[in-house]
């Protein structure tokens, strides 16, 4: 089966924000802060710039973006649409410039003069937490958005633990990089008194809510359309100040306005994610069975709390998901969201899980090395067994179903562990070192009200709704509030409709991305769409099926209970049938053929859906990698890569494979390439794709994927959210493989991306501190 949406994408017929042209449309460019931290003392519009240059003082009635969390101790930040008095990030908006084209708008931005009083910048999350650090928000008194604590009785385990392992880990700040950046076109419709906003977003309804709050408009005065969107990955799950500003300009100037983010804006000012630091102490018995984990985690949350997921998006989750798929006795964690003079931390595929998996899985490998056992073996002893499912773990996460140990065993088998161990016994002809590594994790997805209510961010998901409508010619329209931008939901939701109504997917249209046409939804995030929108579509189609059956049965002269719907026909027991076209035509165009007591709701239903439990599905996966490390150049080549995953019942295995491949590519980016470094002044140092390295086709190995299919007991078809897992496992699996390769040298890498310099430094450090034996090994390769 081909994806329905691919025809237009492959033929270049997609329509993205950048393709939209409206008569009289003006382009917007922003003057952005050149420094990370300063007081904005004065800003002067150029002569004649009254109608084309706008600053904070012009934004009458516009409110700052606020994303408040109900977590205890959360400190509020207001993200200004245009900065008024203080600048807290390089790239923060200082003025908006309007011109007939982008170059002229940038010329205007160039001509603005301003005076700054520079302040020392907080460039690093650990620095942010030190006494005397500069304050990002003076009124707070410190640089802490929020801290989450999980307490546990580590002491009782500590005394009897034979093994204690201490490590420090870091995952670098990244810029998630969808092919299409952000972009917005806004126009004020005078007839409807309504703002029409085309924006590249994953959550049009939430953007609508956010815009109405910031602009002081009623919901009905805002219509948001997300047309084709060229990749989201979480970066399009936020409200940007640029969106608010462009909308205000469209209202103020009465003309269509457009801003298209360029790659420099995306890299240096907006798309930021993933920056974690961990101090972990793990306790194990003499065989390496994990007994307890004591962790202190810090997430660099940047300067502002992004809407709607807030500044604790990652850290608050870190505390609850660090234990991973394991069962052990004691756990303690403190997780801090630190404020720095860097762009706000945003959700990125795998949210928090990628860093957590990295810290946990490297720790388990460190334990395995300590006790001299195979890393996969010590995992098998503490993974939650299938007999315990469903299982409430140490932080009360409810694992719905699955066989975690089997998943790991399959990955170990597929990667050929014994063969790799054998290969390692003789030296490679090219002097490289071979290593093998695994990682395993579970991924809470499609979690709903009960989970998010406690977090209390501006958006708590409830029932997901879908509209199913049979058209007069017997086709099916499905209207959903989520958005599809690469996930293939125009195909998979149609498959659900086909499954229930027997209508060919070619005759099913999935309508999404327009707040005027679809039911309210929190949108596409958290690997929730196949579970939530899929469940809603299934329920809606089932109800529609009942209505169709009644009309069809009447036309056939039998009772509704005596018909079935097959192949787009209502079929009676004696084999006579009417087509759904006939049913549709009758309801809409020939109602005289129907009895008076026919259901007046007709052939359109709106249904809300929640899973039987809203604590989330837990898909899981084991990743395994074989790498070759060049200890002189510091380079890493991935020789083999395996993913064994369980996403419950797969609606479309081809699409799931695609999700896994894409996620793994991004995970390899996290593991080996992608990094947005900042200097001590808070300046981003990788503002082009020549400096910010993304993996390309030649860097991605041929990934082997194996599926397991353990149904979730709580969802419509047993499906689980599976969209993010590919991006979670690779940094851990690859780093474990690299550290396995480095074992003869006694070196270990605990930070991603594993750049040549980091790798060579690790070897250097091992050389400096190693006992004589491994020092000799280090000499041998250096």
């Amino acid at each position, binding site marked *: 089966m081909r994806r329905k949406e691919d025809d237009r994408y492959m033929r270049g017929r997609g329509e993205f924000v950048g393709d939209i042209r409206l008569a009289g449309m003006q382009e917007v460019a922003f003057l952005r802060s050149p420094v990370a931290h300063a007081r904005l003392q004065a800003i002067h519009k150029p002569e004649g710039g009254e109608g084309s240059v706008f600053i904070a003082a012009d934004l009458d009635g516009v409110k700052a973006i606020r994303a408040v969390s109900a977590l205890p101790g959360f400190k509020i930040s207001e993200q200004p649409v245009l900065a008024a008095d203080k600048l807290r990030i390089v790239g923060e908006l200082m003025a908006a410039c309007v011109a007939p*084209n*982008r*170059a002229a708008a*940038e*010329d205007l931005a*160039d001509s603005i003069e301003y005076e700054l009083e520079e302040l020392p910048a907080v460039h690093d999350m650990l620095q942010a937490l030190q006494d005397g650090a500069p304050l990002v928000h003076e009124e707070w008194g410190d640089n802490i958005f929020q801290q989450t604590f999980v307490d546990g009785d580590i002491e009782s385990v500590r005394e009897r633990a034979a093994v204690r392992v201490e490590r420090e880990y870091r995952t670098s700040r990244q810029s998630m990089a969808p092919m299409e950046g952000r972009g917005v076109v806004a126009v004020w419709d005078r007839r409807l008194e309504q703002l029409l906003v085309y924006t590249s977003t994953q959550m049009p309804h939430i953007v609508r809510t956010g815009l109405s709050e910031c602009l002081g408009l009623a919901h009905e005065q805002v219509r948001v359309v997300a047309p084709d969107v060229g990749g989201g990955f979480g970066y399009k799950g936020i409200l940007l100040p640029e969106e608010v500003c462009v909308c205000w300009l469209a209202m103020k100037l009465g003309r269509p306005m457009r801003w298209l983010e*360029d*790659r*420099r*804006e995306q890299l240096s000012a907006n798309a930021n994610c993933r920056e974690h630091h961990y101090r972990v102490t793990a306790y194990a018995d003499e065989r390496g069975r994990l007994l307890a984990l004591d962790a202190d985690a810090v997430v660099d949350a940047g300067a502002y709390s992004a809407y709607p997921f807030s500044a604790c998006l990652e850290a608050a989750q870190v505390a609850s998901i660090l234990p991973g798929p394991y069962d052990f006795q004691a756990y303690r964690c403190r997780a801090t969201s630190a404020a720095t003079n860097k762009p706000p931390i945003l959700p990125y595929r795998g949210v928090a899980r990628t860093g957590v998996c990295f810290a946990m899985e490297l720790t388990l490998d460190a334990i395995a090395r300590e006790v001299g056992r195979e890393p996969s073996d010590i995992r098998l002893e503490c993974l939650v067994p299938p007999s315990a499912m469903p299982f409430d773990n140490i932080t009360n996460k409810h694992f719905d179903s699955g066989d975690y140990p089997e998943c790991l065993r399959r990955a170990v088998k597929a990667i050929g562990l014994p063969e790799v161990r054998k290969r390692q016994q003789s030296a490679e002809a090219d002097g490289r070192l071979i290593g093998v590594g695994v990682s395993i994790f579970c991924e809470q997805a499609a979690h709903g009200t009960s989970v998010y209510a406690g977090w209390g961010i501006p958006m708590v998901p409830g029932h997901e709704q879908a509209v199913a409508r049979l058209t007069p010619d017997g086709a099916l329209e499905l209207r959903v509030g989520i958005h599809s931008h690469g996930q293939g939901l125009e195909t998979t939701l149609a498959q659900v409709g086909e499954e229930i109504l027997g209508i060919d997917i070619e005759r099913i249209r999935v309508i999404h991305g327009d707040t005027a046409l679809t039911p309210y939804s929190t949108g596409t995030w958290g690997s929730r769409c196949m579970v939530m929108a899929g469940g809603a579509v299934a329920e809606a189609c089932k109800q529609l099926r009942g209505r169709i059956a009644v009309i069809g049965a009447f036309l056939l002269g039998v009772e509704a209970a005596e018909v079935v719907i097959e192949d787009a026909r209502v079929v009676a027991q004696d084999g006579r049938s009417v087509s759904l076209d006939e049913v549709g035509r009758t309801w809409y165009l020939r109602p005289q053929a129907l009895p008076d007591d026919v259901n007046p709701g007709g052939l359109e239903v709106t249904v809300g859906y929640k899973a039987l439990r809203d604590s989330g599905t837990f898909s899981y996966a084991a990743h395994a990698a074989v790498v070759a490390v060049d200890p*002189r*150049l*510091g*380079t890493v080549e991935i020789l083999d890569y395996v993913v064994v995953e369980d996403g419950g019942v797969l609606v479309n295995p081809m699409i799931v494979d695609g999700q896994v491949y894409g996620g793994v590519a991004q995970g390899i980016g996290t593991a*080996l*390439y992608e990094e947005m470094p900042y200097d001590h002044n808070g300046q981003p140092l990788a503002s*082009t794709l*020549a400096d910010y*390295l993304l*993996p*390309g086709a*030649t*860097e991605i190995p041929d990934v082997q994927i194996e599926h397991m299919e353990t149904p979730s007991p709580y969802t419509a078809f047993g499906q689980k959210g599976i969209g993010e897992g590919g991006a979670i496992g690779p940094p851990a699996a690859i780093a474990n493989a690299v550290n396995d390769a480095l074992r003869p040298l006694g070196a270990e890498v605990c930070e991603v991306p594993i*750049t*040549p*310099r980091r790798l*060579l*430094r690790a070897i*250097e450090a091992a050389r400096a501190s190693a006992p004589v034996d491994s020092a000799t090994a280090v000499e041998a390769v250096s």
Partner: protein
Amino acid sequence: MKPCAFDYEHIDELSRACAELQGGNARLVAGAQSLGPMLNLRLARPAALLDISRLPELRGFAESDDGLLVGAAVTHAEIEDGLLPDVTRGVLPRVARGIAYRAVRNRGTIGGSLAHADPAADWVSCLSALGGEVVLVGVDGGRRMRVRDFVVGAFHTALRAGELVAAVRVPRLAPGSRFGYFKACRKTGELAHAIGAVFVDSEGGTERVVMGATGGRPVVLEGEGAMAGTGWEEALETSAPGLDELDRRLHLETLRRACELSETL
């Protein structure tokens, strides 16, 4: 990220390009693969761009007994694809194939790359090793320079006002000579962190090694035993004193790889 306004002129006569370059804030453009991003980032703000990409004198080539004269506006892709006679026994097409990505090679030119003088550019190191030369043309006539002398520092050449790179002279390589080339890159298309190049022509008595992408002009060692490795560290220390220990080791290792991987042509 759009350039400042500039005048654009399509140049159809070499002498006019030189004349216009002499006064005012004009820059030459051919493939625009380096200048384009600089314009868009507004790091370069020329008043005028003089497009020499279709200038017939710069688009041709001429083969002679001792080598090949390549017009400065010949693209990397044309060299890669063998559209020019190859006097280097495969060296030039091979190095061309490793430059950035095909999209860059389709437009980027050999002369433009040398005139831009990015220390990490392949032609700078490769031609320094082979003993290539640039042919410079200015208002006062022409001159020739070795590539290794032409590049005097990072993004810095010996070009004078009103002078441009018209052609590149590539020497004919003798059978039995050796060439090796190795780039330290993490991914396809990335600018190199270190480049090693080695060329040996025993008959002609040439032995030359180059350490490129050091952040300055290429470090060239020449003479019998240049490949042996003695003197590399010292040369690197002298020519690129700003490197830290890891970078220094990377450059030495990269050159060692170039020597190890060198092949008889």
